[in-house]
């Protein structure tokens, strides 16, 4: 059985190219993708994850408002019963060229398990996701 994951671009963000490429790459890598596309709210992500019993939510934000848009997503997931679901974020997460380490920290503090710098290749995300899922499995067994 394939692992379900939810993919989308959060907020008022319409950048669709990376989203389509991620869809293609993660599907090729064997995941079952639910792609909610661009301009998706936190609720859209959560609903899709519940519906598909997803193991991970992959949030893209390209346009700079990621910091505002992602705030509280972890808490809402918990409330909705998606306890400990893997949360990844990638893209151009903040406005402007900022010190990457501090950006990463800000997103980790918001509860993201993995945070990716601009231009990260899908392969890196795929590798990490496989790794993290293996770890989860170990924890359970």
């Amino acid at each position, binding site marked *: 059985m394939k692992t379900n994951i939810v993919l989308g671009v959060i*907020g*008022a*963000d*319409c*950048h*669709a*190219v990376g*989203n*389509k*490429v991620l869809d*293609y790459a993660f599907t090729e890598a064997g995941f079952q993708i639910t792609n909610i*596309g*661009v*301009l998706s709210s936190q609720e859209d992500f959560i609903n899709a994850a519940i519906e598909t019993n997803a193991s991970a939510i992959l949030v893209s934000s390209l*346009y*700079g*408002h990621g*910091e*505002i848009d992602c705030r509280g997503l972890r808490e809402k997931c918990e409330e909705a019963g998606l306890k400990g679901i893997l949360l990844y974020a990638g893209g*151009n997460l*903040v*406005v*402007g*060229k*900022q010190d990457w380490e501090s950006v990463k920290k800000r997103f980790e503090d918001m509860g993201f398990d993995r945070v990716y710098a*601009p*231009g990260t290749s899908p392969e890196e995300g795929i590798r990490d996701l496989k790794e993290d899922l293996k770890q989860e499995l170990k924890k359970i067994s």
Partner: protein
Amino acid sequence: MELKNKKLSEAEFMQERKEVLTHWETGKDVDLQEAVDYLKKVPEHKNFAAKLRKAKEEGITLAQPRAGVAGVDEHIKLLQYLQNEGGADLLPNTIDSYTRQNRYNECEVGIQESIKEKRSMLNGFPVVNHGVYNCRKILDAVELPLQARHGTPDARLLTEIIHAGGWTSNEGGGISYNIPYAKSVSLEKTIRDWQYCDRVTGLYEEMGVKINREPFGPLTGTLVPPSMSNAVAIIEGLLAAEQGVKNLTLGYGQCGNLVQDVAAIRGLIQQAEEYFTTYGYDIELTTVFHQWMGGFPADESKSFGVISWGAATAALAGATKVIVKTPHEAIGIPTMEANAQGIKATKQVLNLLKGQHMPMSKELELEINLIKAETKCILDKVFELGKGDLAVGAVKAFQTGVMDIPFAPSNYNAGKILPARDNNGAVRYLEFGNIPMSQDVKDFNKQLLEERAKVEGRDVSFQMVVDDIYAVGKGTLVGRPEGK
């Protein structure tokens, strides 16, 4: 209300207008007659339409950056810097993404947070929230014409505010600010809403104020075949003209192959002029060339290479203006310094190339003819679908995939076509979806892609498309397999 390519009646427009101006509290400051009086006092050198006309006469290419931050004073500082240090010829006001989605409440949050964090938390200038008087404050603070650049499906209130605020150009269009920028807004609605925007411009024209309008040429900015974007540009131009727009700038986003890019700009202006003449519109037409709109290299020096090559192509093509990228493009909204750097590199190239144009050659002629033929295939069918009505035709064309923009997020876009580069880097159709191209055109596109495939020792496939999406960011034009 039925969509039609017909000038909005005064009654219809005025009624709608009342409602539009209530969408946010700043709407109340818009007073058309007062605005006209104000605009008539704006000096000629700050009028966008006038400056473009002059550039066209002189045969030069103007440089315009993108720029916008959350706060008014910071935004003024930014524009002044781009004017003085960067040497920009035209100034933008890039609008933030919440405004683009009419989420003015979220803008308010962004403005407040920006004040708190002492850095812009918004990716542009929230013009609706700031309102008419702040627009004028900005105009007073600079010596160049101002334009709003956004990506707003419903830009009616925004349009009212910016023009009343003295900004004499507005970017956008019912197709170009929907398909690449929205997911679930119908084309009927955006075309109708942009008729409103165009009608506002038309009204100003009728009251003696020149306002420039610019459909957004590059669409998704990613491997859009020139004939598809030229078709959109011509349609939006015709729709705008019907509402009384007089000064139009049609746009195109660089693909990267010199001959194709020059052909696209030359073909666009020739063909647009033909259509305007046929349909009886008397339009002052100029062109805008966008430096590469797809993914950029992260390295700043490499970005300078991309930027400069875009500037060179714009000049050689003879575009009236060029929209400038920055060395921060791959990473984030540029600092004002990085933004000025992009302009300076661009202007240096434009100045070196002043008076130099790409001479006509067999290759260029062929490419112009190809682009025009492809564009005509599309437009003929659009008119047919609309039974002569372009607005209706456009909606139906997207419904049926006759028009189809690669990688667009909109649910109203078929998403069936695929583009890829040929062996020389020109963008061709790999999948035509439902675009009604002639067999000649289809065969020629196919042949060119097969040639590339042969060189690369692989089949024409989606992997080629993915490779091409990444290519410029990785430092090449054509996305070849390793070692090819």
